[in-house]
């Protein structure tokens, strides 16, 4: 419970009162996602993506647990049981396509959620812990997605497993023992498949646990908002329920429509045809690519083609790829500007959009074959990615002159409506208009 004016839970039904006295779970839910959680009144639709990510996780867990009922984690039968799920199991095709495309949608909404956090400075004090826990969730998601992709035991499964565990082999001295330990053999095999299945089942529940911490940490300062100005009083907030449950509900509808379009009309659009060929350790597919959500990082991995200072290119690529994510853990301390929202930071905003374009270019190169000009473009775009966070962002924070911030959330909302209000003549919307500075 973040603000003193938050509504208090009063059980209406005697049964709820009985439960609440013994175990205050209804109270907890009420204060977390009910009317007991006051939320800034000016959130835009970018604030939907947290709830949508939660929904995507639920879809993955439900479809995943069902598919596990029909799956055999053994290299002799794994590929066959997945095909059997597709062809013979009642609604098995639906479960598998929903699970495969659900993973993509999970990453889409999480990337948009991260985009929102980056633009509106949600990672800044006092919400650093929310950001850090979010990155932990992101790393867990990547590990889970990677292991899940191995389970159908197709060509891309096998070679993806080989390439990704090969990353650990790049570590000096201990690399190869670690790789062998991860795989339980010298190449991906039955031991690897079994452990990946076990961990792929476990990690989503770990993610669910970290999400609870993520929300817990969020609810201490309360949600941020598009102005980045902190809540000053009850007039700045509305209760989560019904205001944002309704707004999120609309977002859920849009999400499900888009998900259904892909699921029912182009279920293999984001997949790779090579994964419908059973794993063959003696034949590498002509073009190994991970799933699209790993492409920007894959491009950084492949960008290193020559050794620097006696450090092998392979190790440099691996270090760069992991650093590209680990660096984000330091973001709250790299961006020192006290202004959160990109709406009030004209210079930051320009470089922010350049960064987004840069990441999209990296993504494109990561999906392209390892040849020129893509390698060269990856090198430039990869260098820019690091430069943005390590050089440009600290410099902007130092030299930028931000636009004037609104006095409060309410003021920014009323001003915005006042500009329209001059035509509509809305009554009671502030008699003395403030100079509009909400960008």
């Amino acid at each position, binding site marked *: 419970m973040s603000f003193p004016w938050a509504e208090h839970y009063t059980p209406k039904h005697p049964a709820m009162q009985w439960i609440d006295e013994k175990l205050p779970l209804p109270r907890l839910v009420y204060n977390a996602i009910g009317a007991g959680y006051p939320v800034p009144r000016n959130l835009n639709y970018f604030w939907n993506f947290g709830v949508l990510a939660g929904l995507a996780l639920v879809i993955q867990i439900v479809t995943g647990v069902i598919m596990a009922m029909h799956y055999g984690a053994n290299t002799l039968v794994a590929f066959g049981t997945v095909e059997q799920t597709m062809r013979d199991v009642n609604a098995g095709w639906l479960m598998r396509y929903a699970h495969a495309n659900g993973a993509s949608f999970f990453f889409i909404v999480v990337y948009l959620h991260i985009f929102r956090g980056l633009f509106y400075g949600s990672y800044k004090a006092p919400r650093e812990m929310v950001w850090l826990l979010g990155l932990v969730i992101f790393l867990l998601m990547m590990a889970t997605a990677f292991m899940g992709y191995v389970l159908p035991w197709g060509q891309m499964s096998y070679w993806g497993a080989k390439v990704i565990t090969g990353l650990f082999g790049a570590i000096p001295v201990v690399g190869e023992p670690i790789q062998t330990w991860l795989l339980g053999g010298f190449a991906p095999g039955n031991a690897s498949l079994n452990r990946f299945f076990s961990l792929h089942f476990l990690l989503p529940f770990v993610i669910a646990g970290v999400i609870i911490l993520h929300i817990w940490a969020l609810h201490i300062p309360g949600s941020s908002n598009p102005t980045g100005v902190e809540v000053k009083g009850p007039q700045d907030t509305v209760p989560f329920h019904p205001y944002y449950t309704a707004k999120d509900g609309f977002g859920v509808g849009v999400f499900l429509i888009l998900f259904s379009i892909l699921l029912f009309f182009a279920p293999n659009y984001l997949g790779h045809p090579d994964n419908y060929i059973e794993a063959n350790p003696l034949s*590498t597919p002509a073009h190994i690519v991970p799933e699209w959500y790993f492409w920007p990082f894959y491009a950084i991995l492949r960008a290193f083609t020559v050794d620097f200072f006696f450090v092998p290119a*392979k190790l440099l690529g691996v270090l760069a790829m992991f650093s590209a994510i680990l660096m984000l853990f330091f973001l709250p301390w790299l961006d020192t500007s006290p202004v959160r929202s990109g709406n009030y930071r004209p210079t930051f905003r320009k470089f922010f959009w350049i960064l987004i374009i840069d990441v999209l270019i990296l993504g494109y190169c990561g999906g392209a074959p390892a040849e020129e000009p893509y*390698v060269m473009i990856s090198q430039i775009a990869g260098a820019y990615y690091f430069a943005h966070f390590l050089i440009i962002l600290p410099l902007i924070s130092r030299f930028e002159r931000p636009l004037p911030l609104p006095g409060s959330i309410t003021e920014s909302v009323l001003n915005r409506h006042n500009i329209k209000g001059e035509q509509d003549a809305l009554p009671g919307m502030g008699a003395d208009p403030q100079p509009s500075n909400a960008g």
Partner: protein
Amino acid sequence: MASVEHTDSQGLSGEGGVRRRDFINIAAVSFAGVGAVAVVIPLVDQMNPSADVLALASTEVDLSAIQPGQAIKTTFRSQPLFVRHLTDKEIAEADKVDVSGLRDPQTLEERTVDGKKQWLVTMGVCTHLGCVPLGAGEGENKGEFGGYFCPCHGSSYDTAARIRKGPAPKNLEVPKFAFTSDTAILVG
């Protein structure tokens, strides 16, 4: 209460202010810590290759059917193995390279058995991230140095399977092998 505890702790303190309770605390926690580590060892070790995976049969390869310029793909320790019969031209190409300029400097002699320079036996595992390079099969892309080419990240190996271009850090690994006759080798 506080004062009683105070005198009590003074009464128990031995030399250097160390109480018996401190000793018991450290001893108990250390013992539990060692026990916890002892439990973790098997939990971690079970992930290592099991006995059946480690029980590696060595592989025997018959070379009699491999003509100069040809190569075969077989398996050794469930990973691909390339056996290549080099032509005189390929041997000459490998020999004329200045070894000091290579990323992983080795001569063809060092990578083959004495007097059997034409038989190049290597693992078919790219030293970058473990893909199977192309070049052993008929009509496959051998890369710009005429040896092997890894399609994953573009590493090119020469006719001695040495890394010449791309991200791979090492030459293709030469496993331990010996000739059992003029036309057969035993790998492993």
